[in-house]
């Protein structure tokens, strides 16, 4: 390892945060430029890593290892494989887009970008960590900046932003409390000498951790990752939180942070506690099905754009959960791909909603109409995101969704059937929203609203490129993910051979 690429990607935002700290409050332009420059650098490096990743060889690449806390067995170990690399890419792309989405923030600009950079660094860390301690550390680092950002730059709609912020924070932290217990007991049970994910996974798969323990520990992890992934009934923080948060936070939160839940379930739940995963999978599948339909139904009666997308993302996370629960190579590939797809799509949505809100201070569907007349670019952004979330081919969501369906239908026929029915409801609420907001007669009130240009256009272009690019050439995404999932196949085969315990066949 010559150049510490991942460390650079991880630490660059922190360095930027520090640099911004040292600037005077008034130099807003420099602050923005630093943030944008740093994120561009990180994105370019990540893209390089994505391109240079050897999918044939697979496994952890770009690894870095420095012993850190020896008496706990913590190592500063970074690395990416086919599962984490797409997530890393997602993080940096959305991070970059969110910087531009926040371009026009004039209120306490300095504080905002410091927090945003810390947030991005935290999320980045969770995906590239190969050590559980670092994973947890980075994850929890993220929560507090979000709270402060909601508090200062958030907006009060259905619920006060203070409520939304604290709900989100406490919910996630409560989840992480269970997760911490799970992780600590895991660490002890595996011998208490290493937090390294590979070491723990080896312990889990070789039978050092007995089945009862795995079942128990997985439940704890599920509580943590499940609430992060807004699994029913732990989802209620998510729409409120997104509605309260400034758009950059919504973007990162819906786009990336939520995915830590799915990523963690695979990285820890499946790899370290395979028997636990096997035990709880049917329950997860049932809840996933509820997620898909329940949230879609609720999204249908929402008025606030952010609530619609909030519930929509709860609904989409149901597919991810379902993919996970089916525990086969295809469905898990689909789950990972779906996380990427939803990340790009949801953050595009939030950036566009953010733009509307910034310019009109309106977010309620009944109050908006006919924006297509005045804001054609925004319309394109909205349509792209909307159509992607409907699952149209040529856009990013199609192949992942299809993959999940293929992977799950044979395992959980009923759940999958109902979840697939979700595509109808998704179409229903998305199209209703698009129709109402974008189309219809010209409304003179919006005549003076300028269309997106300059920095405002960047999120649309950036996310749009990935939305369409991965849609038209899914192998760019699926190839990398496949190299990450292929090593799991023996484990998954072993699992599927074992009988289901919690009443299979939902």
């Amino acid at each position: 390892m010559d150049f510490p690429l991942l460390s650079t990607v991880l630490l660059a935002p922190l360095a930027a945060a520090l640099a911004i700290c040292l600037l005077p409050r008034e130099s807003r332009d420099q602050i923005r430029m630093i943030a944008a420059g740093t994120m561009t650098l990180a994105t370019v490096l990540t893209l390089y890593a994505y391109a240079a990743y050897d999918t044939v060889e697979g496994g952890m690449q770009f690894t870095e290892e420095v012993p850190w806390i020896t008496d706990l067995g913590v190592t500063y170990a970074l690395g990416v494989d086919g599962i984490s690399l797409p997530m890393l890419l997602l993080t940096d792309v959305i991070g970059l887009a969110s910087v531009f989405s926040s371009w026009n923030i004039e209120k306490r600009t300095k504080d905002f970008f410091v927090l945003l950079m810390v947030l991005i660094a935290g999320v980045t860390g969770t995906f590239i960590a190969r050590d559980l301690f670092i994973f947890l550390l980075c994850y929890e680092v993220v929560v507090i900046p979000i709270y402060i950002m909601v508090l200062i730059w958030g907006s009060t709609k259905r619920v006060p932003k203070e409520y939304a912020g604290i709900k989100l924070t406490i919910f996630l932290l409560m989840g992480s409390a269970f997760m911490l217990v799970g992780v600590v007991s895991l660490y002890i049970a595996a011998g208490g000498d290493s937090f390294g994910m590979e070491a723990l996974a080896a312990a889990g798969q070789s039978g050092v951790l007995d089945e009862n323990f795995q079942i128990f520990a997985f439940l704890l992890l599920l509580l943590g990752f499940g609430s992060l992934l807004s699994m029913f009934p732990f989802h209620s923080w998510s729409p409120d939180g997104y509605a309260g948060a400034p758009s950059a936070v919504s973007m990162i939160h819906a786009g990336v942070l939520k995915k830590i839940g799915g990523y963690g379930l695979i990285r820890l739940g499946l790899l370290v506690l395979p028997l636990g995963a096997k035990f709880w999978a049917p329950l997860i599948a049932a809840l996933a099905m509820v997620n898909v339909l329940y949230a879609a139904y609720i999204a249908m009666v929402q008025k606030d754009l952010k609530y619609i997308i909030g519930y929509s993302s709860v609904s989409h996370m149901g597919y991810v959960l379902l993919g996970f629960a089916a525990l086969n190579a295809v469905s898990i590939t689909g789950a990972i791909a779906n996380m990427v797809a939803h990340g790009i799509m949801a953050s595009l949505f939030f950036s566009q909603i953010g733009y509307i809100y910034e310019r009109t201070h309106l977010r309620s569907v009944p109050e908006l109409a006919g924006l297509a007349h005045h804001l054609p670019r925004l319309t394109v952004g909205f349509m792209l995101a909307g159509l992607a979330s409907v699952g149209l081919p040529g856009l990013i969501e199609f192949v992942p969704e299809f993959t999940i369906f293929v992977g799950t239908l044979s395992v959980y026929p009923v759940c999958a059937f109902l979840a697939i029915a979700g595509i109808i409801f998704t179409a229903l609420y998305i199209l209703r929203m698009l129709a109402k907001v974008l189309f219809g007669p010209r409304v003179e009130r919006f005549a003076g609203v300028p269309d997106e240009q300059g920095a405002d256009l960047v999120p649309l272009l950036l996310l749009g490129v990935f939305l369409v690019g991965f849609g038209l050439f899914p192998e760019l995404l699926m190839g990398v993910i496949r190299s990450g999932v292929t090593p799991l196949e023996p484990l998954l085969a072993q699992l599927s051979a074992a009988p289901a315990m919690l009443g299979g066949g939902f």
Partner: protein
Amino acid sequence: MDFMAVQTEILILLLLLSTLVTDLAMAKGASRRPVAYLTAAGLAAILAHTCGLYHEGASPVFYMGLFLADNYALFFKQLFLLGMVFTVLFSLDYVERCLPHPGEFYSLLLSALLGMCVMASANDFLTAFTGLELMTVSFYILVGFRLSSADSGEAAVKYLIVGAGSTAVMLYGISLVYGAGGSLDFAAVSRNVHLFTAVGLAGVVLVMAGFLFKLSAIPFHMWAPDVYQGAPTPVTALLAMASKAAGIAVFMRVIFTAFPYLGEFMLPLLKTIAALSMIGGNLLAIRQTDVKRMLAYSSIAQAGYMMAGIVAADYFGMKAAMFYAMLYVFANIGAFAVLSVVDAERGGTSRRHVTGLSQAAPMLAAVMTISLLSMAGIPPTAGFAGKIYIFTATVERGNLWLAVIGFVMSMISVYYYLQVTKAMYRDLEPGEETLAEPLPVPSVARAAALVSAAATLAIGICPESLAVLTNFASQTFMQ
């Protein structure tokens, strides 16, 4: 009679005397800043001196094993010294403005410190008791030191009444243990089989009650909120970190040297108390609007966490508790440094008083947030590493439920810590604009706050250094 064993105490005593003399020598009404600088410089020098006292092998003992200057004691003494130095520094301005007779204030701080150091080194009940009382009586006065505030007097009286009651209980316990164990020496007591009789066991629990009072563990916590709230802010800081740490120091030594064979008997008790403290402290803190009072409840919960480390009853747990005690010092310094400045400038420590601090003094707000997050155990602050140490030790001994309570309650605690953060960071409402005006922050206090926050982050990111120290200290003790 190895006087080298008591060199730290002797130095502190000398410093104490010199502050008294200096104070007397100075003109009436003159600023007592020189005394403060003398105190701080002297303490810093002693702290530097103690760094050289860590040793391998046998520890120096003073007078028939009454007083043991081992690495364990040394660690805690450094902890007290550290807390004291920072407190003196960040409260310079506060003391000058809010307290009468600042010279005597420093002398009393030093006598409390002396008491703590004696406690840390105590190797029999007599020494422990003496140290404890030296500290406690000094604190009675310190708590009531803010003559301008009636609350301060009330707090002192309450502390005195409850504290005297607890002293009586502890003494009664000591007398029973003495009767059963036939000695006041820890090691001698531990060897006496009569400790397992009704008298012996009753004595043991009464002694423990006395120490638990110092730790303000539930149900011996009732005094803490009132006293913390009423006391002058620097004194509150010391109560929270140093007094508590001294309690922990002597408590652990008593448990592990005097009653080492009583594990089966005591552990369920201690676990219950730890759990109660974690739950009760955090729950009670939720409704508080005064930050100092909230920190009092929070300190009850912190005592619970440290006890959770102690009940692991092994080297790891002890190390974890020591680690936690140390990082708690830094967290407290940060929080109270900010509070002292706010208290001095705005005349109070309620949430109302810290409102808008992120604009009035962004650095202080950041330090406050970091310190509170460290108490809550959110990374990358030291508290996270501390909690991981404590609860890995706890889980390792099979007490998973304690870890569940600990983690869940610490997340609940984030709620009330964030209420403070919220007050500092939220948008100001109309009519509150004055709160955004820059707050004059004394440079020494600023430096102290910054250093503590930096230390909190440094320990959080790189816990190894401190862990090595605690390892070393606890190992020699366990031999």
